[in-house]
Every structure is written in C-alpha cells, then in structure tokens.
C-alpha cells in the first residue's frame, strides 16, 4: 500500500513538474470551444439605415429588418447569399417564426404599435395585439408569445390562439430588451439594457413566468466619470446596454451589449466576451443561418456573421434537450 502511495506521489510530482499543458474541465464552455480559429467575420449586408431583428428558419435562410431605409424592409438572405425583399413598409425590431409557419414581428418603433403575424410568401399581415410597445419577442411551440416592452419594464404574454394578452412580469427588469428561449423551452432569458443582469424565468406549463432571477452578470466598461468610493477601486458601469439575444443547442446564451457579444453557459456563468467586430453599437446577436452554424450581429449600418462552433435549434419544431458540446 505504502509502495503504491509512494509511486503515485512520485508520478503526480513528476506530472506536475513536467506537464506543460493543463486541461479544461469537460463541462467548461471556454471561448476555445466557441471560436473557430480560422473563421473571419464577413459582411452579410452593409449601407443599411439601421439593422435589427435577425432570425433564421430551419432551411438556413437568414432574415433581418432594415428599420430606417425608405421604406423599411425585411430582407431574406438565402444560404447562397442571395438577398430578396420579403416585406416592406414596416419597421420591425424583433421577429421569430411560430409553430404555424407564420413570421411574428414586433412593430413598436414606428407609427404602428402592435404585434403582427405574416404569412409567407404572400406577406399577408394579421395584427394580433394592438396598442403595445414591443421591442423583441420569442414564440414557443405551444403558440405562446413573450415580448419585451422596454419602457413599461414589462415582459408581456400573448396567446396566439386565444389572443389573451397580459403582463407576464413587471418591474424586475429595469429595461427589458432582448429575449431568448432555452432549447427545452422551459427557461426564458431577458436582457436589461439599463441594468447589469440578464434575467431568467421558469416558463410554467400555463405560460406564467416565475420565479424571476438575475441569472447572468454582464461585463461593463469602467465608468470613468464615477467617483471611486476609496479613490482607488474602479467603478464599473451599471448600464450594460444588453440588447438582442440568442441561444444555441448547447444551451449557451448570447447577449449583444455595449462591449460586444457576451456569452454565458447554461448555468449562467460567463464563457466570455467577443468584442464588437466593427466600431458601431450592436443591436442584436443571432445564432442560425446555413446549417445553424453561424453567429450574426447587427451593428447599425451592417450585418456581419462568422462561422462558429455553434448549433441552432428551431423552437417551432418543439422543445429539445440541450446537447453537450462535442469535445475536440
């Protein structure tokens, strides 16, 4: 026994002295397991008025809205990069496909103040909820819509079939903005553009949201105008500018922010920060596109994408369990 211990100790000692490369734990979702070393950011669209509302379908088509072109346009970008105008005349700040194949959209930025559904390819529009101020939304496989109403500090519930409209959460999030579903559709995450947390809720079977938890802590810049309490320790900004969000099949959360894309693992721990690829403010991030293998960001006049070690999922096809990140 003692002999064994001596050998083990010696082996451990030698390993610690001579091994040069320590290892990540299998569960650690490091940036090395997100970024593909040779992948570069590429331009999807440029010269835009103001890009937002990125989304995808399961065929690999990517969609976004140029909210400030004349007229505003929802664009479709096919996997072969061919761009076509899908809908024009409506500025949309968030859109997602629903279980009935329609495209659901937030029209809260322009004259319209409503949630609309578009039949494709006809473009036939149905207004589902009026006199609301939606910023961004998700649609579950059950046909529940959750949308953020930033000014009201509210996440609002809308049942597509019954048209039931009611507040789902009020007051927890100072400026609810981006919104995203976990792959199993049991967790809803909401970014706070004026706060430093991303909030998470359990989606109850009846669609209610409880509890509300400040689940992920965003990184912010040092506030250089703030007075340090001890004259020495830096004060970090409270305002993360957390904006559009996305999730992937590995259960990671992606949040656009003042500093860039912030990535969190399913337990809410920070995987890391991807600084903005381009020096303009970022309004959204989206995982999708061809094979669900791209990360898209919208930055005012540009939409960029980069192939990444990500995998998209499609909520309208039903809930799925998050899968483990493959080990290289």
């Amino acid at each position: 026994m003692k002999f064994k211990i001596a050998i083990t100790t010696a082996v451990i000692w030698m390993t610690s002295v001579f091994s040069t490369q320590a290892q990540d734990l299998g569960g650690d979702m490091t940036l090395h397991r997100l970024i593909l070393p040779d992948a570069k950011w590429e331009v999807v669209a440029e010269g835009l008025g103001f890009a937002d509302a990125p989304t995808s379908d399961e065929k690999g088509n990517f969609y976004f809205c140029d909210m400030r072109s004349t007229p505003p346009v929802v664009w479709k970008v096919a996997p072969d990069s061919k761009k076509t105008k899908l809908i024009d005349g409506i500025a949309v700040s968030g859109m997602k496909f629903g279980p009935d194949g329609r495209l659901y959209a937030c029209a809260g930025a322009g004259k319209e103040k409503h949630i609309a559904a578009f039949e494709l390819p006809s473009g036939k529009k149905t207004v589902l909820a009026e006199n609301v101020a939606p910023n961004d939304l998700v649609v579950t496989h059950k046909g529940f819509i959750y949308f953020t109403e930033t000014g009201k500090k509210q996440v609002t519930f809308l049942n597509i079939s019954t048209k039931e409209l009611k507040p789902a959460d009020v007051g927890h999030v100072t400026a609810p903005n981006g919104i995203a579903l976990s792959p199993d559709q049991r967790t809803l995450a909401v970014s706070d553009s004026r706060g430093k947390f991303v909030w998470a809720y359990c989606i109850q079977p009846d669609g209610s949201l409880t509890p509300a938890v400040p689940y992920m802590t965003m990184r912010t810049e040092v506030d250089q105008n703030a007075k340090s309490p001890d004259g020495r320790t830096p004060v970090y900004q409270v305002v993360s500018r957390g904006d559009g969000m996305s999730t992937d099949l590995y259960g990671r959360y992606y949040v656009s922010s003042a500093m860039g894309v912030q990535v969190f693992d399913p337990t809410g721990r920070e995987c890391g920060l991807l600084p903005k690829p381009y020096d303009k403010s970022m309004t959204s991030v989206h995982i999708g596109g061809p094979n669900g293998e791209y990360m898209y960001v919208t930055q005012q006049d540009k939409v960029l994408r980069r192939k990444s070690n990500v995998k998209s999922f499609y909520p309208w096809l039903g809930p799925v369990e998050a899968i483990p990140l493959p080990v290289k």
Partner: protein
Amino acid sequence: MKILLKTMNHWKQIGLAGLCLLFAFAAPAADKKLTPYHEVQPGVPQGTLTKYTNFSSQIFTNTTRDWWVYVPAQYKKEKPACVMVFQDGHDYVNLKGNWRVPTVFDNLIAKGEMPVTIAILINPGHNGSYKPQNAWRVSNRSFEYDSLGDRYARFLVEEILPEVKKSYNITDDPAGRAICGASSGGICSFTVAWERPDQFRKVLSTIGSFVDLRGGHVYPYLIRKTEKKPIKVFLQDSSGDLDNPFGNWPLANQMMNSSLRYMKYDVKFDYVEGFGHNSERGGVIFPEALKWLWDGYGK
C-alpha cells in the same frame, strides 16, 4: 519492508536527480551588465532627441508634463516611421541609465534589427501643487497609469500623436505602433493596447504592476474570457520583485503570462531569479526584447 525501503531509496535518487535538473533549468545568477547596444558605437549614425516642456492636456486637466521625441537618423519624411511610446519618459532618455533609448535605437536601427522608429517618451502629469522629490513622484502618475479603461489611450491618440504628426510622418498601422513602460507604466502600456488594439499592437512591460493598485489585478481573468486581441506582448519580471498590500508582482506577471499563453497570444516572458523592483534586468534584456517585438514587422 525491505522492498519498500529499497524502492524509496530508488525514488530518492530519482528525486535528487530531478532536483538537480530543476536547478539546471533555473537560471543561474542573471547578468546585470548592460550590452554593447547601450554604448555609442563608432560609425553608427545618431538620431536626434528633442525635449518639449509643459504639455497641457484636455483629458488630464490641470496637469503639465515634459516629453521627448527621438527621431532616428534614418528617418525620411516620405516614409511613415514606426512609433514606440514610453511611459516615465525621463527614465528612458537618460543616457547613463539602464534603458538609453536613443543609443539602443541608434544601434538596433543601424543593424536593421528593428524598423525606423520614432520614440515618444512621456512623463506622467503633475498638478504643480508641490515640488516632487523626483520625476516618479508627480501627482498624476498612478491615476494615469494604473487606472483601467481607455482614458490614457485617448490621451495618446487624441492629444500626443496628433502633436507628433504635425512634425513627423508616423504610421497609422497599429502593428507598427509599440508601447512600453515599467511598473505602473507597464500595466499602462498593456491597458492602452488592450483598449485600443486598432491603435497599438505591441507591448513591452517590465516589472508590470498587474496588481490591485487600481483594479488591474483582474487582467489575467479578463484575458481568459475575452476573445484574443491582435496584440504582441513582451513581459519581464523576476522573483525579487514586490510583494506588498497591493499584490505579488512576480506571481501577477506569471498569471499574465499564463493567461496570454492560454488564449494563444504572441507572448514572451523573461523571468529570472533575484532582482528587485527596478530596471536592472529590464535594461539588460531591452535590446533583445525590442528585436523580438519588432521581429517580422514589414516583412
């Protein structure tokens, strides 16, 4: 029992051999002698060093500072020169000190071992409310150098570089712009490149204060959780550096090195036994560090 003893002896021997090996790997007492690059060499053309006084800043209000510009003899205004900015400039222009930037640059540039580079050597600001004991003791040094964020980078990019550009043609290529400092000047240099890799992409830090003077101890963790930035970093520290209420300099620099390596940065770390919180070791390796930092540039 007998077997066990024998085995133990065996391991003891291996252990001793291992220890000897360890000592063989550890650097022997590192050299404190400066190099021929620090001496004026016959036949090597000498650049010019110009001192400017009382620079007043809009970003660091109510301060003034002295600064210098070194221009190599090989500089031609038709061709944009590389740039290297030094913090605590007074120490780097001292021709009897450990750095001797004008002489070392003259020699390296003449041998083609670094590109034609204009050095900008800047003192930290002083508010004039007292007479500092020495140039290190001015009022604004810690605020300017140890603070996180982009304020000092903005001072360079918005105030100093435009001033230099009035007289000299300097490159806008961030890979042609290096930044160097010791101690708080070291973390300051790293912060500038970290915040503005679009402006500076080469860092030389000696005895860098990656400790909690003003929150800078977070860098090893920020680096691991931030996508790799296009920065090349030379770090120097030694076992005899500071261990005080703000942190342990040798450990902090090892942490910086391991984090930069973990994220696959182009990094080189000079770490030896001994030496204190001074420029003795930094000065000795200065020419080699510059060669490494500029290696491959423009090729």
